């Protein structure tokens, strides 16, 4: 009996330690001891945000990510931070520049994207080339026309820094700062950049009402025979389906867009549908910032789009000139209701 008990206990012990060993190997990092778990405050009307299981959010992780976001240490000559081209007052785009200028004073080829409600997106960059928010982080750091830094260098600087090693150790454990930690910390901060208190949201919650012009704009926005915007800029929460489409900017695309990622020529010239939240603040527009105003954008979809083999079916079927100038102004009035002034002034997102 006693023997059986002892053997039983030993078996249990081995099974437990074996399982523990396995778990440890397949590293789903639990939150380090002493950290404060952070629960995102999702505004009413927005869906829940899925947080990746290997990067749980903590107050300390977000604070570290924010510090890195504003720190030029991640650029080649320590002059540029993420925040240099992603500025809060412009919904985290780069002021009104068509192309941001990197540390070597060279322009890029695409318009800096806004950083809003990123946790709802599955892929990042205009072409979706970054498979997740964490993986996006190393793009701008290494891009020669952006921050132009090597990861080896950036890690060496962080590891030699007077305060970063302790901060990283506190959040992620380990004795050395590794790339994945930098990626995870910045992604944690970026997931907190949530906008959901625009006039549109307030009207939805019954705390305000649209002007007649804004209401007409909303009607044209969803009307299949007028704006037909909501096919892709899904009405309600994210204002995007985050799919890739050729919207007829060029018959022969200069930039392959999604095709460069999928390596499928039928995706050439396709780009991700951007969210329209704070759209009045994020001009110029399109992946290459070719349109300065919202009016130019809407007129592109009204009359300007060009034929391409893979032109989006919604545009193939649309009738050119279906909006008159007053309709365009109405849609712009509606789009202005998506501006969230609380978001662009939120002190939590400031340096």
């Amino acid at each position: 009996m006693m023997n059986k008990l002892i053997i039983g206990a030993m078996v249990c012990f081995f099974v437990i330690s074996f399982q523990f060993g396995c778990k440890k190997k397949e590293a789903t990092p639990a939150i380090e001891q002493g950290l404060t778990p952070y629960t995102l405050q999702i505004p009413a009307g927005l869906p829940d945000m899925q947080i990746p299981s290997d990067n749980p959010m903590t107050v300390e992780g977000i604070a570290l990510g924010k510090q890195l976001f504003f720190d030029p240490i991640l650029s080649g000559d320590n002059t540029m931070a993420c925040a240099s081209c992603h500025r809060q007052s412009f919904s985290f785009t780069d002021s009104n520049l068509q192309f941001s200028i990197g540390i070597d004073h060279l322009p890029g080829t695409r318009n800096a994207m806004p950083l809003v409600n990123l946790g709802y997106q599955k892929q990042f960059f205009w072409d979706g080339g970054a498979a997740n928010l964490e993986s996006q982080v190393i793009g701008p750091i290494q891009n020669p026309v952006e921050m132009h830094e090597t990861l080896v260098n950036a890690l060496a600087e962080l590891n030699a820094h007077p305060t970063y090693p302790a901060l990283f150790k506190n959040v992620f454990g380990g004795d050395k700062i590794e790339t994945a930690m930098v990626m995870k910390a910045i992604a944690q901060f970026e997931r907190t950049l949530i906008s959901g208190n625009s006039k549109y949201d307030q009207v939805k919650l019954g705390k305000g009402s649209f002007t007649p012009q804004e209401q007409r704009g909303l009607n044209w926005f969803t009307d299949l025979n007028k704006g037909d915007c909501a096919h892709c800029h899904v009405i309600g929460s994210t204002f995007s389906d985050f799919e890739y489409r050729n919207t007829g900017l060029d018959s022969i695309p200069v930039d392959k867009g999604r095709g460069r990622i999928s390596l499928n020529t039928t995706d050439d010239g396709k780009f991700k549908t951007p969210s329209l939240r704070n759209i009045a603040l994020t001009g110029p527009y399109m992946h290459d910032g070719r349109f300065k105003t919202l009016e130019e954008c809407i007129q592109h979809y009204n009359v300007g789009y060009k034929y391409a083999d893979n032109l989006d079916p919604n545009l193939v079927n649309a009738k050119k000139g279906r909006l008159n100038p007053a309709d365009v102004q109405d849609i712009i009035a509606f789009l202005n209701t998506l501006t969230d002034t609380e978001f662009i002034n939120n002190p939590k997102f400031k340096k």
Partner: protein
Amino acid sequence: MKFIKITFMAFIAIVSIASCKKKKTETPAPQLPPTANVAIQFENQVDGQAIELGKMQYTNAAGNKYQIDLLKYYITNVVLVKDDNTELALKNYDLINAADLSTCVVNALAVPNANYTKIKFNVGIPQDRNHNGAQNGDLDPAMGMIWDWNTGYVFFKHEGKYTNSANAVKSLIFHYATDRALTPIEVPLTTALNVNGVDKKLFIKFNLNNLYTTPTNLDFNIDNNHQSSSSADFPWIDNMKLSFADVFQFDKTE
């Protein structure tokens, strides 16, 4: 009191008998542990020539002179196959850098004693780990093997130069990548790896020249820059995948 004494003596007697019995059945030699570590050593070379960076000293099957400035590849998910066809899977992700011998080894720890007759592994990163940059060890993006504009690892890199038909030195870039390129390899161990409680080494040869021979010999004058970044590279990727079949060969065990 007497009872206790007798019981105690009986106990001693039983214990000593038991230990005697045990001693008799034990082999006198010290027993070997049930497992051992195996260091799987990758010997990088070009038709028997050692890898030296920056020297125009190699000749491919098409007769092109070439040099190697960088030679790196991922060996992942090594499986050791026993003579009874059962398998030991390592779940490893190792980056081999031909210029740094310390990286040219995959360590298999606590391998159970048995005869192993085959080794299997991938060149490349399986799909479930290929599209996330926030990983550590040899998958750390700082190793310089992941694309930052299209999340995915480069499975194999050969960068260097070749001497063209006009005798000019031109650059050579082969970056073998995308899920399509994941290459399963099987190498029969013509002399079985006998793990018997003592640490062993298994030597596997990697011959770069065998990579540029399928289906026909690759002429660097024509094929000298493939970076797996457009569908135009798919035929090259498919040929490389076939070529890899005879790049790795069993050398010896120690």
